[in-house]
């Protein structure tokens, strides 16, 4: 057991290059298609609609050539919460019968009231969660963080011109955040290990447990924050030294090119979303 190996759990920004079709899509179109599909997942309440989306997403995962098992591995930590949520929905969800919903009661005991609607809600929300997680993983596993930020910056660039929306600044903030997530994970790991080595105890118990536990975190938090502040200061200096003075007048190394594939991909996403949302699925 590696109780301190934190880096492993940082999956944001983990990119798996397989060179697939999904990888090669223009990030602007990929982001747009992603947004459309997320919308479809969010607003679909039927079994069949979700089934269609699930099939589509699994298909996309195969197309991306990232192992399905790896995409799903992010689910494991969320599983207990997911199960608890489902149980609560099945056992406690009471639909508003006055509004003529066609729910039938499965069984009722004390405050427990289980209906078909509760079961449906549980299954649909679990499906939604899995779909959203797979979609997000798929996006980050097949898109480098730079592509992502370039995509965001260019997608919002028209807004910057017209409404002074800070697209460049936003993209820069995202880039720097993603750049430093692994660095901070490493640093946190080092700090935790160092403090444990000098006698810190992470699992204290006592009457004032909450206070003690918060206090037990200070040896980690103080160095982490001081380190982060120092690093931020150094980063600002380094950026200034390299003539950074805001987005005005900057040129860019990376140019984005869209091809017919990208248009087709976006079209497929819109079509799928329309099908799922507009067709009156029987159940």
């Amino acid at each position: 057991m590696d109780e301190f190996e934190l880096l492993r759990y940082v999956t944001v920004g983990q990119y798996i290059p397989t060179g697939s079709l999904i990888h090669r899509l223009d990030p602007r179109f990929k982001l747009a298609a992603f947004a459309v599909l997320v919308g479809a997942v969010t607003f679909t309440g039927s079994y069949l609609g979700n089934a269609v989306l699930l099939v589509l997403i699994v298909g996309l995962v195969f197309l991306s050539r990232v192992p399905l098992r790896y995409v799903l591995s992010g689910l494991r930590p969320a599983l207990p919460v997911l199960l608890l949520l489902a149980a609560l929905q099945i056992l406690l969800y009471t639909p508003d019968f006055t509004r003529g919903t066609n729910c039938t009661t499965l069984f009722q005991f004390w405050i427990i009231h289980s209906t078909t609607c509760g079961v449906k809600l549980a299954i649909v929300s679990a499906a939604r969660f899995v779909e959203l997680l797979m979609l997000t993983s798929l996006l980050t596993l097949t898109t480098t963080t730079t592509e992502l930020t370039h995509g965001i910056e260019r997608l919002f660039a028209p807004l910057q011109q017209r409404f002074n929306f800070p697209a460049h600044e936003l993209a820069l903030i995202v880039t720097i955040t993603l750049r430093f997530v692994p660095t901070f994970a490493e640093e946190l790991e080092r700090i935790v290990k160092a403090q444990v080595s000098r006698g810190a105890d992470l699992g204290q118990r006592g009457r004032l447990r909450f206070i003690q536990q918060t206090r037990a975190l200070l040896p980690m938090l103080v160095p982490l924050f001081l380190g982060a502040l120092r690093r931020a200061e150094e980063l600002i200096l380094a950026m200034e030294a390299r003539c950074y003075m805001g987005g005005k007048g900057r040129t860019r190394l990376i140019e984005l090119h869209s091809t017919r594939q990208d248009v087709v991909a976006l079209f497929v996403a819109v079509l799928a979303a329309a099908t799922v949302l507009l067709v009156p699925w029987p159940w």
Partner: protein
Amino acid sequence: MSEVVVEVRGLEHTYMRGTPMEAPSLKGVDFDVRRGETVALLGHTGCGKSTLVQHLNGLLRPQKGRVRVLEYDLNDPKVDVKALRRRVALLFQNPEAQLFERYVGDDVAFGPRQLGLSREEVRARVREALEAVGLGFEAFKDRLTFTLSGGEKRRVALAGVLALRPEILVLDEPLAGLDPAGRRHLVELIRRLKSEWGLTLILVSHDLEDVVLLADRCFVMADGRVVLSGTPREIFSQPPARLAEFGLQPPAVTAAVHALAEAGLGVRRDCLTVDEAVSEIARALGMGGKPWTSSSCCAT
């Protein structure tokens, strides 16, 4: 001979096991330390030396192979690592970054307080530890930590682990980032810990620097394995090309005598200190005595 306090056999370790980013770090390491010994663990960044020492106080557990430290068997999942960590202290690289209390005294007292000692005892330990690193108790206990110089902060961090009164002390890159005066100071301090405290010391370094001369034995690691072991004299006097193979640079003094010997001057190649090299070169050049003669010297 004294008892073996650290025994590592066939240790293997892979980071990020079971992910696409798997990175093997240790590939079968054998390593042992006896009580009271000073051992140096050498090698360039990424050779596995940090991974190895993290096994010694239970920060990492053996994935394959055996690790025993004092009477603790790290292969036993129920081993009391908290008790182990009190007796084996590990000071990471740039430990000054880990200070978190406002006052020097409080920071040094952190470890002893975690042990649940009485006020008087904590105070006694802080005094002892601060004096041991050459910072006067009265003068420093109420100083604000952030006003200290880099070298002073490092010594406070060292005092913080000494206050646990460990039996084994592991120092990871103790001299990194210090200026020449700070380096001299710390080498002297470690020498005293060795002779006066009788600690079992494990020094981890990527430089063949002065502090390594304090070691009784050295282990050179490369690519997850121990590739060379012996006394500092045996290690330092290896041909520079062989050390370079393992990503190490010979210390200037040994590099100098090696170069002189290569040029044909009859000097011993295993000089460790400036003193030794001076008398060796002086002898070879016949300074203050009869000149040394050889037909092959400095043929070019």
